[in-house]
């Protein structure tokens, strides 16, 4: 029961991945694409935690921690470039 619900949750998150990456490919301007990248990184943190749960290994959470800390760096870098401060 509980396992099934979590699998459904992973499926829903995957649908989100599809939509956000469609925006990434289509998006008319660079800020649009950056927003999509931001959304994708946050969703993939959740996906990584779910993978860790499926495979039953605590150690995979460290990867999610690295993501949680570093994923916003790329977005800030692009934002700083766009506003001319890099």
């Amino acid at each position, binding site marked *: *029961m509980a396992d099934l619900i*979590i699998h459904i*949750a992973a499926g*829903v998150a995957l649908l989100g991945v599809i939509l956000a990456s469609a925006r990434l490919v289509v998006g008319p301007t660079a800020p649009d694409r950056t*927003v999509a990248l931001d959304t994708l990184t946050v969703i993939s943190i959740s996906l990584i935690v779910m993978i860790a*749960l499926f495979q039953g290994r605590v150690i995979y959470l460290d990867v999610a921690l690295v993501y*949680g800390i570093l994923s916003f760096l790329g977005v800030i870098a692009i934002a700083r*470039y766009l506003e001319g401060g890099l």
Partner: protein
Amino acid sequence: MEGYRVAGSLIALTGSLFLFLGALGVWRMPDVYNRMQTGTKSTTLGSILTLFGLGVYQPEWMGQMLILMLFIAVTNPISSHALARAAHHTGVPLTQKSVMDELEEDVPLPTERVLEETLSEGEEQ
């Protein structure tokens, strides 16, 4: 035990629904700023709920989940703020439906170069 698991997975399902709604908003909204709205608020809430739910599901992972939630709650607003500032600075137009633009007089005129580079797809080659 089983009750905890079902409760945790239900919370996780709610969170991933929010993630999905955030992505849907990123796809459907009319301009950058609205997209940023859904793409940040909704996904922050969604991922925090997901992590919390999985922490309830697997109680011994709760510590790491709390650290992760803390980091997401700190870093996500920073990045979205920087991005919104950059988008407004480069002069990405607001949608026709917007009512007001409070930052309007705040913006120094963007240089022609940056504007053209950001908005146009035709460059090089």
